[in-house]
């Protein structure tokens, strides 16, 4: 059969509109419903992880004041907080949530290429979440091995949850990876195969680029986690010695023969470092679109932004051992990884410059999504700069395992992507629901979150310089730490509780606006990309009514001279509107 592109075959394709409540909202194959299912589940577990962090902070700020927090539960809180935030919230939300919602709409497709598999992806993800949460309720509780699950301690007596918790954690990760792979195959195939006419790769909005490359990273990196999870399950369940060294436990010989814990670290971080960019690249892409839309200006250096995303994606696979400088590696090995780590700062810095230059002489509208986007630039620069410290072996060694590291990664992959998540939810809320959110409440939410996170994490850098170790349940009588360190910890806890509490504003805003918000038009931001040009808001099943859109231009034709509106949607033909800028970035 001669090859016919999917977009050209549109009239032949039957669209099975869901008929019943169940097929429409529960077992739905519509990418928009699946996106909301993914998003809601991810946010739900995210709130649990947020509560866990609040409990950790209670102990750190006011040691031993709360009977329900003991050393075991503290380690369980740490572990579950980290794992949920990184994998079950951020990865699932960016790729399963935003990826699902945005890829077909921004590419001008009716749906994902394999809707059934897409539906399956969500339900398998839900199973992984249920397995994970079940570990709170099994004998011994969830695992307290730390989110990195390093052996041998992860499965040795002394660590909480070595009977059931760790097994459920590894099982849940394996199930999550299956879910992600099903979703990921869909995202990649849809981007490569199902774009509408005229939507060349180099006309895709940067959100799609970020999600696309992040998915590729995930597909290649998650197998490393799967391999290490299976091998650790073998070590735990069967007594093999993949990772478990010859070791005696409380005077007894558990029978392990001499495995390599370092091997686990290599496998884990071969996944773990790309994971940082699996979370960051979608955030980079989305923030580019938010900045451009709300500054009414084309993104500065579109091609450079695409190349930077690709370069960061490629480089992210050869920097993993910078998480292992203290594991005792050959100096040349450390030198290599320090060099690649610093090289990755180049494309990242290019992106930061381009965001700032996009704002330059733009017509900036400081609406809530824009505030979050600009806030991201701040927090990301701060987190990125401390990354330069930790990427260097000699500086990392004294700072390793201190609060400096905690501050660094929370700024760069905790606060920053979460700010983008909020910005993106506010930005697309009118399209997803057809209602407008409350702008005042949104701004309050932004300022309290943004300033509050600085109150939490800036002092942590200082604690790190003082040598306060991370992961400790209590400092005890540590002589080299002055009382002021404890006072600072109390202050951080107060700030953290404040920021956690202010998130209620977000939920009030969402629920209230969903019920009683003003009706939003189809394109309230006067944006150019295709998702704002749908015939219905919120878009109906099949997205585009009878005719698929045709794309004639990139997504960044803002403030084009000689055109009456300050934006030209991607589906406006060239004879109806002038060419965009003569040269990218020029003004």
């Amino acid at each position, binding site marked *: 059969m001669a090859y016919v*592109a*999917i977009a050209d075959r549109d009239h032949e394709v039957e669209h099975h509109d869901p008929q019943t409540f169940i097929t429409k909202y529960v077992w739905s194959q519509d990418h928009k419903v699946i996106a909301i299912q993914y998003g809601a589940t991810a946010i739900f577990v995210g709130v649990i992880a947020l509560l866990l962090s609040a409990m950790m902070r209670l102990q750190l700020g006011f040691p031993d004041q709360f009977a329900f927090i003991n050393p075991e539960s503290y380690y369980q809180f740490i572990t579950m907080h980290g794992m949920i935030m990184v994998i079950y919230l951020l990865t699932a939300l960016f790729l399963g949530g935003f990826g699902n919602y945005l890829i077909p709409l921004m590419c001008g497709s009716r749906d994902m290429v394999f809707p059934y598999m897409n539906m399956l992806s969500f339900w398998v993800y839900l199973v992984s979440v249920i397995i994970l949460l079940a570990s709170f309720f099994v004998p011994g509780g969830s695992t307290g091995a730390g989110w990195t699950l390093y052996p041998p301690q992860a499965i040795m007596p002394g660590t909480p949850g070595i009977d059931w918790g760790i097994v459920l954690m590894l099982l849940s990760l394996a199930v999550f990876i299956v879910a992600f792979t099903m979703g*990921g195959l869909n995202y990649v195939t849809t981007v490569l195969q199902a774009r509408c006419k005229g939507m*060349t790769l180099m006309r895709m909005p940067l959100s799609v680029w970020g999600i696309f490359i992040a998915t590729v990273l995930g597909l290649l990196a998650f197998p490393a986690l799967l391999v290490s999870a299976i091998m650790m399950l073998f070590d735990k369940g069967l007594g093999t010695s993949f990772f478990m060294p010859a070791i005696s436990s409380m005077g007894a010989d558990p029978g392990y023969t*001499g495995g390599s814990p370092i*091997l686990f670290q290599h496998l884990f971080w071969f996944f773990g470092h790309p994971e940082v960019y699996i979370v960051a690249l979608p955030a980079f892409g989305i923030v580019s679109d938010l900045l451009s839309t709300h500054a009414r200006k084309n993104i500065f250096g579109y091609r450079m932004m695409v*190349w930077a995303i690709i370069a960061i994606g490629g480089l992210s696979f050869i920097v993993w051992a910078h998480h292992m400088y203290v594991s005792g590696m050959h100096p040349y090995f450390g030198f290599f990884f320090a060099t690649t780590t610093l090289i990755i700062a180049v494309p990242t810095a290019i992106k930061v410059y381009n965001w700032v230059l996009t704002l330059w002489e733009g017509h900036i509208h400081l609406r809530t999504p824009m505030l979050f986007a600009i806030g991201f630039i701040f927090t990301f620069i701060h987190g990125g700069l401390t990354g330069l410290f930790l990427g260097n072996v000699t500086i990392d060694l004294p700072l390793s395992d201190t609060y400096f590291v905690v501050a660094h990664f929370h700024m760069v992959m905790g606060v920053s992507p979460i700010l983008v998540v909020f910005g993106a939810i506010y930005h697309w809320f009118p399209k997803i629901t057809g209602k407008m959110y409350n702008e005042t409440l949104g701004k309050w939410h932004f300022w309290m979150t943004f300033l509050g996170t600085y109150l939490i994490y800036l002092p942590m850098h200082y604690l790190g310089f003082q040598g306060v170790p991370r992961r400790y349940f209590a400092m005890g009588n540590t002589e080299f730490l002055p009382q002021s360190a404890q006072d600072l910890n109390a202050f951080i806890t107060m700030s953290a509780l404040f920021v956690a509490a202010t998130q209620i504003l977000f939920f009030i805003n969402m629920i209230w606006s969903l019920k009683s918000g003003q009706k939003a038009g189809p394109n309230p931001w006067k944006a150019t990309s295709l998702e704002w040009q749908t015939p219905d808001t919120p878009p109906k099943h099949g997205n585009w009514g009878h005719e698929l859109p045709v794309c004639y231009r990139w997504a960044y034709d803002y403030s084009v001279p000689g055109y009456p509106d300050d934006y030209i949607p991607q589906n406006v033909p060239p004879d109806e509107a002038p060419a965009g800028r003569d040269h990218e970035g020029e003004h």
Partner: protein
Amino acid sequence: MFLAAFLAVFMGWLLKQSFNTQPWVPEEVEETAHQAPLGANAKAVALTTLLAVITSFFALIMSAYAERMELGDWIPMTEPNLLWINTGILVAASIAFQWTRNRANEGNRPMLLPGMLVTGALTIAFIAGQLTVWRMLNASGDYVTVNPANAFFFFMTGAHALHILGGMYVWSRATIRLVTGNDVEKVRQSIELCTIYWHFLLVVWLVMFGLLLST
């Protein structure tokens, strides 16, 4: 190394798409209506992506194998000779699938069902052969826990067999379609993709078997 090569090719292809483009210039659509640049259909693209994921999975297991065997407690395993016969069966299954696929392309409908059944039988024989190897090893006291080399052997062969069983699921669907007399064109694509998958798993097995034999 493999991942580096794969990424280099993929990233290179993406970059090639982006050179000499001027995304900011609007154009009439005829020139740029190039929405499926790989010139293949969606299922083939999805399969290719899946093969990349599986390759990453097995490449990582084999890297871990190479790392782990450097340590002192490693005692190389003697692979049972039955593995050679199993390898022969898997090669035969691949050849049978290729033959079936060629018949499908010729539109030779009557030969498809026998081809599929022979392929299926050979593949099941391979799985049974692998299980026999496992039983032989267990019978001779070469349990999974005896030595890391054994643990890796069971892990690698088990993971490979599971991937074959996954393929058998698609094979069974295609065969049922053939029996129920569905549209040949639909089955043809399933056979085509299954053939690629079988060849791929054969290559994975050959590389893995080579690694096991040489260490």
